[in-house]
């Protein structure tokens, strides 16, 4: 893995490896000294063309726990075309010897462009691009789901998949990079994904996705999902004729108190409620649902740092070749100091 641009091109093997490494990183987060020397001397640039304090500090904490130097580069303003171009910015970072660029950008595909352009040699991590993908968010969601699923199954989460799990994603799928990244990653990990939302907020072409689509949230809940992921409703959609009013949206597609009670009635005691944050309480999710014991919102935030540590570690520590199988590795010279041949 040279870059992390999307979950669609992430193999099951690499996805599991990321999650397994994240488990080890999570253990470090519970120590008194939460720091590892692995990326000492490496430089990670947080290049944010869009404000997102949450994501930026999560990446910053991850890089610092691995002892990397962190440079925060906030490109202000909504339009990138004003002032410096992406190319010029990239070349500036290259001149500063950035080893990894964590990029958040309002344009879909900007990280892929950066990675393929040849403007910069650094590893590129997509921290959310337009309405395309947000792979580390999906990884932390998968990490959270896997821990929950493994706990229910009474097995350790490391090495396990989401096979047999049913995850319902609800809301504005059309404009959601979180939904896209989750659809690909969760299905790669073996989960069954259900989508529910107003037809206006589901993309044309969704029929080719590996999931079942519901226009009615209660029909989808009747499928007895093991997790319900509520998507944030962006303010700018509210006045663009995607739905008649926020009240109607909330009634039909919001996770309200009635639906929270319905989970109990249906005996879905182990179903969790997820939200990538920040939440519009009272709109797509009620306060009672957000604060209920079913809510994984805070665990998601916590797991974000572990997943991002794993991402940065795996992209920056090696010599860009995938780790061979363990036995093969033992047969190769020059893999460990103890077995090294000159």
């Amino acid at each position: 893995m040279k870059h992390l641009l999307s979950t669609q091109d992430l193999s099951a093997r690499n996805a599991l490896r990321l999650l397994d490494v994240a488990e080890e990183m999570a253990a470090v987060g519970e120590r008194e000294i939460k720091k590892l020397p692995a990326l000492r001397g490496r430089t990670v640039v947080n290049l944010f063309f869009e404000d997102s304090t949450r994501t930026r500090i999560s990446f910053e904490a991850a890089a610092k726990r691995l002892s990397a130097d962190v440079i925060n580069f906030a490109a202000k303003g909504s339009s990138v075309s004003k002032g410096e171009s992406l190319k010029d910015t990239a070349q500036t970072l290259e001149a500063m010897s950035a080893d990894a660029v964590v990029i958040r950008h309002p344009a879909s595909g900007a990280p892929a462009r950066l990675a393929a352009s040849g403007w910069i040699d650094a590893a590129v991590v997509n921290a959310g691009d337009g309405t395309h993908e947000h792979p580390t968010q999906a990884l932390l969601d998968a990490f959270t789901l896997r821990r929950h699923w493994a706990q229910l199954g009474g097995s350790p989460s490391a090495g396990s998949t989401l096979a047999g799990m049913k995850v319902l994603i609800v809301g504005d799928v059309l404009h959601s990079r979180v939904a896209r990244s989750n659809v690909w990653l969760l299905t790669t990990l073996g989960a069954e994904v259900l989508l529910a939302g107003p037809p206006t907020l589901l993309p044309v072409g969704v029929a080719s996705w590996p999931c079942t689509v519901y226009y009615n949230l209660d029909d989808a809940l009747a499928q007895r999902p093991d997790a319900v992921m509520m998507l944030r409703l962006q303010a700018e959609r509210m006045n663009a004729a995607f739905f008649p009013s926020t009240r109607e949206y909330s009634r039909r597609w919001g996770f309200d108190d009635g639906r929270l009670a319905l989970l109990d009635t249906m005996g879905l005691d182990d179903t969790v409620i997820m939200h990538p944050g920040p939440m519009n309480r009272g709109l797509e999710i009620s306060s009672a649902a957000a604060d209920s014991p079913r809510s994984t919102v805070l665990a998601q935030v916590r797991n974000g740092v572990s997943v991002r540590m794993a991402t940065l570690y795996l992209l920056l520590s090696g010599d860009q070749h995938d780790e061979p199988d363990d036995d093969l590795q033992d047969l190769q010279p020059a893999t460990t100091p103890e077995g090294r041949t000159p």
Partner: protein
Amino acid sequence: MTVPASESGIHKRVVLAEADIDRALTRIAHEILEANKGSRDLVLLGIPRRGFPLARRLAQKIAAVDESVDPDLITGQLDVTMYRDDLRRNPTRSPLATQLPPSGIDDKVVVLVDDVLYSGRTIRAALDALADLGRPRIVRLAVLVDRGHRELPIRADHVGKNLPTSSRERVRVHLAEIDLIGGSAVNEVVIEDRL
């Protein structure tokens, strides 16, 4: 004990058979108890992957001598991946779990256990990893094989066997807990040399 060249064109020589390994571990277990004047505060931390089963075997041998010892409560695993000085030279390595015994390591006598001592760099990494986890009273080192060629000022307190090797050769330790060769679990130490 010389085995003819294998089909892969590598010359293999078994230097320690199963019984030799067992004898060496028994001796090391006694040495550890002797150096520590008993089993008090003893913690054995194996370095993955083969240091951990060796640490378990040593703990069992110690428990056989001192009935007050529960081998599970004095053994742990110390992963040093993130502390290595060669991370950027090799393919990306996934870190493995670090598991400390419930007593922790503060003020304990920690014996690091590894299969082969060579350049000393793994032990250097282990000492750094240990410092981030706590503050042992004493740290000692036990290895099954010391093959020489040290690159750092590090030496083992307990050595199963000193093996003079050329740096071209590879020392491979096979332990039944991990290694299956031809479908059966094997305990042996082999020196390989390309022909």
